[in-house]
């Protein structure tokens, strides 16, 4: 039919199919609005990994077998990354699709060749080529002939991974367009984020094992004193920590399984009753049968269903547990520092708080339903707070209590109780306040291509990152007063002071819960129309001109992206480069554990000073980010 409806293209027109497709792909890349946050994340992490891989090509080993092992493992990692990549960035731009050209009279073989050629255009192949250059770089030490062999080998490897990626896309296209495919992609993104922030611990463990004996680094068990993860090197057992952490890991696995088990397109069987029991109390969905029949109860039920079914929320919990586990539990076990274990629950609660900075923006324009019902603003805010506390609170309390009880770290009780009470109370309060005072409009939930798809505007990602970090810092600051009192009590050996510290933690949390909700409810009531306009139309209503189209402030996107970057730099300086080395010193982590913590490379006496320097630099970056943001939000 296509041939009948469409005039046959001339030979000259089809001759340069590959060139035309490459040009089309390049135009798509150039016209993209900076890519979604997922694509940006993959590019940034990918470039870092590529440079890391390239540097591995420069590492000298006494045993050439180890050198081959290392590069082979890294190449395998890249191959797996290319195979999994399309799943993670589904819907965020997969380049040219064959179906776009289905109606054109181009022979399939020519079209396939052209599409393959176009697949090599873009940032991902270029980044991968940087990584694959590790092999020729390493071969330069062996002479000219190995170099000549490894250059085409590296190029062929690039062809292999690109073709593999296309095959995966072709094979999984149907699956990836379902919600389960999107959730699988979201899961991969969550794991990448967790590894980016906590993978250093796994890398260190593997690096130690690589240095400890011959053979592949990734193999578990075996002789030579090497041990699987969960036991300290040298056979030292960190108390009874192993079972507790494996129990926590089991819980994590359960959460993971829950994320993925739902059949695509169907809700869990909670809406019992159906038509047969219509019109009776039995037709009431489960959550609202148990909750009070009030506006606040209605909102709590809505939120509990969202926590149960929205994979973005489940993945946030999973990511928080992973990040906290990788940064605290793995080092605790691998480097014999069990004193870190009581803090895993608190760490996870802090990470979850960072994801609670934009609850109204996340709902998109669904806020209009609340706007249509007069006088329910307070119920909407309080209902969100109650639901957050009901979902996150018990999980973090149980994790904390279990880890302290099972590892016998009784000294930590007052510290953790004071800090956790403050964090669990302050987060819902600040969540309401920050979300209403500084909402960031996101893409409507039913239009999203995956759990982490917030929209195509890169400034949204920057603003969300800034808000997340802001929440993290504010919530962490709330834990300080109580924790300091407990610390004073411990130093002066005055239990009463420690009890007072716990009470201060509880009071701080309670006060912020109440205050944040009150201020937020008032603001929603007074400025609900403005909030609705913002969520519907975006941060500014552009003046549309037929001649020029929407007149957008040219520097806003760049400034918003810069704010997000500055916040990221600030947090990296404050937390991993500042607070973590301080914590390592306080909790007696092995001095050989240095990884990417710059302060740990300084002489012993100067380590705290260097860490303090990083904290100051980080705070300056955050101050700069906030100054820039305020300046950009002022009317010109």
């Amino acid at each position: 039919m296509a041939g009948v409806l469409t005039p046959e293209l001339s030979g000259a027109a089809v001759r340069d199919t590959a060139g035309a497709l490459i040009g089309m792909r390049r135009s798509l890349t150039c016209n993209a609005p900076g890519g979604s946050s997922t694509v940006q994340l993959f590019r940034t992490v990918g470039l870092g990994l590529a440079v890391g891989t390239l540097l591995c090509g420069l590492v000298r080993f006494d045993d050439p077998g180890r050198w081959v092992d290392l590069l082979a493992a890294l190449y395998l990692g890249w191959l797996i990354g290319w195979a999994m990549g399309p799943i993670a960035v589904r819907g965020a731009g997969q380049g040219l699709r064959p179906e776009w050209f289905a109606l054109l009279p181009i022979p399939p073989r020519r079209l396939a060749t052209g599409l393959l050629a176009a697949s090599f255009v873009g940032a991902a192949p270029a980044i991968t080529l940087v990584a694959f250059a590790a092999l020729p770089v390493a071969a330069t030490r062996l002479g000219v002939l190995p170099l000549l062999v490894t250059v085409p080998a590296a190029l062929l490897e690039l062809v292999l991974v690109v073709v593999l990626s296309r095959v995966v896309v072709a094979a999984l296209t149907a699956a990836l367009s379902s919600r389960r495919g999107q959730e699988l992609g979201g899961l991969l993104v969550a794991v990448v984020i967790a590894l980016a922030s906590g993978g250093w611990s796994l890398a260190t463990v593997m690096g130690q094992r690589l240095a400890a004996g011959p053979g592949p680094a990734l193999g578990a068990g075996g002789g030579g004193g090497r041990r699987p993860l969960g036991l300290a090197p040298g056979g030292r057992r960190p108390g009874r920590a192993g079972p507790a952490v494996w129990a926590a890991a089991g819980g994590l696995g359960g959460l993971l399984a829950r994320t993925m088990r739902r059949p695509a397109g169907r809700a869990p069987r909670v809406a019992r009753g159906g038509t047969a029991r219509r019109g009776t109390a039995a037709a009431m969905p489960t959550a609202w049968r148990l909750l009070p029949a009030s506006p606040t109860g209605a909102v709590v039920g809505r939120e509990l269903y969202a926590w149960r079914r929205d994979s973005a929320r489940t993945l946030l919990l999973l990511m928080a547990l992973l990040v906290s586990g990788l940064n605290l539990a793995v080092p605790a076990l691998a480097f014999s520092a069990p004193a870190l274990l009581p803090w895993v629950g608190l760490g996870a609660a802090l990470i979850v708080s960072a994801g609670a900075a934009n609850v109204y923006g996340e709902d998109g324009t669904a806020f209009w339903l609340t706007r249509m019902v007069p006088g329910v603003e307070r119920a909407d805010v309080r209902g969100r707070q109650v639901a957050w506390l009901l979902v996150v609170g018990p999980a973090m309390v149980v994790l904390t209590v279990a880890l302290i009880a099972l590892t016998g770290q009784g000294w930590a009780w007052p510290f953790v109780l004071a800090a956790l009470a403050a964090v669990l109370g302050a987060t819902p309060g600040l969540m309401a306040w920050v979300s209403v005072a500084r909402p960031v409009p996101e893409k409507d939930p039913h239009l999203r291509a995956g759990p982490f798809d917030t929209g195509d505007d890169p400034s949204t990602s920057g603003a969300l990152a800034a808000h997340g970090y802001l929440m993290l810092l504010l919530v962490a600051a709330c834990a300080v007063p109580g924790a300091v009192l407990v610390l004073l009590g411990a130093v002066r050996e005055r239990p009463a002071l420690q009890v007072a510290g716990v009470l201060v933690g509880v009071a701080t949390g309670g006060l912020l819960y109440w205050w944040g909700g009150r201020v937020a409810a008032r603001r929603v009531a007074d400025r609900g129309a403005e909030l609705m306009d913002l969520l519907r139309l975006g941060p500014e209503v552009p003046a549309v001109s037929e001649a020029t189209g929407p007149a957008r402030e040219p520097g806003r996107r760049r400034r918003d992206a810069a704010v997000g970057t500055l916040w990221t730099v600030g947090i990296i300086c404050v937390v991993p480069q500042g607070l973590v080395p301080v914590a390592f010193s306080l909790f007696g982590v092995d001095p050989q554990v240095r990884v990417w913590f710059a302060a740990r490379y300084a002489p012993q006496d100067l380590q705290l000073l260097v860490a303090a320097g990083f904290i100051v630099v980080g705070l300056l970056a955050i101050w700069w980010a906030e100054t820039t943001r305020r300046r950009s939000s002022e009317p010109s």
Partner: protein
Amino acid sequence: MALPERLTGRELLTYLGLLRGLDRSTVAARAGELLEVLELTAAERTMVTDYSAGMRKKITLATALLHTPRLLVLDEPFEAIDPVSAATIRAILGHFVDAGGSVVISSHVMALVEQVCDHVGVIARGRLVASGTLDQVRDGGSLDDAFVRLVGGRISVEGLSWLAS
């Protein structure tokens, strides 16, 4: 516009009913009837996020009717709706008006407006350029022609001569 996407149709109506202060039994009865009349009972375990465009229109209409309002404001209520459902919705709206309610509809489909409305207003570039009964506004012709005339539109097929060749 978005809805609480992770709720099923029945849950959405239950949520809104309780939010509006209705008691449990009233909410359950009205939700069941609305789902049945709008032919959404078969999909009552499907989350709203998985609804088709037509189903979204219908469940949104249900949310608007749940608390027996006296005025309904509907934007393109028949867009993406199948003919059977459209007839059902027209019947529901007729019943609503007969009971003393008022409906304000915004639409670009003039044939539909002629079919269901008794009063019409035409807005062009943010200004009300005509209003009155249907007959007053269409002034003897069709509403389509009246609309084009009122907004100063121009129907032109100049060029594109190659299409006829």
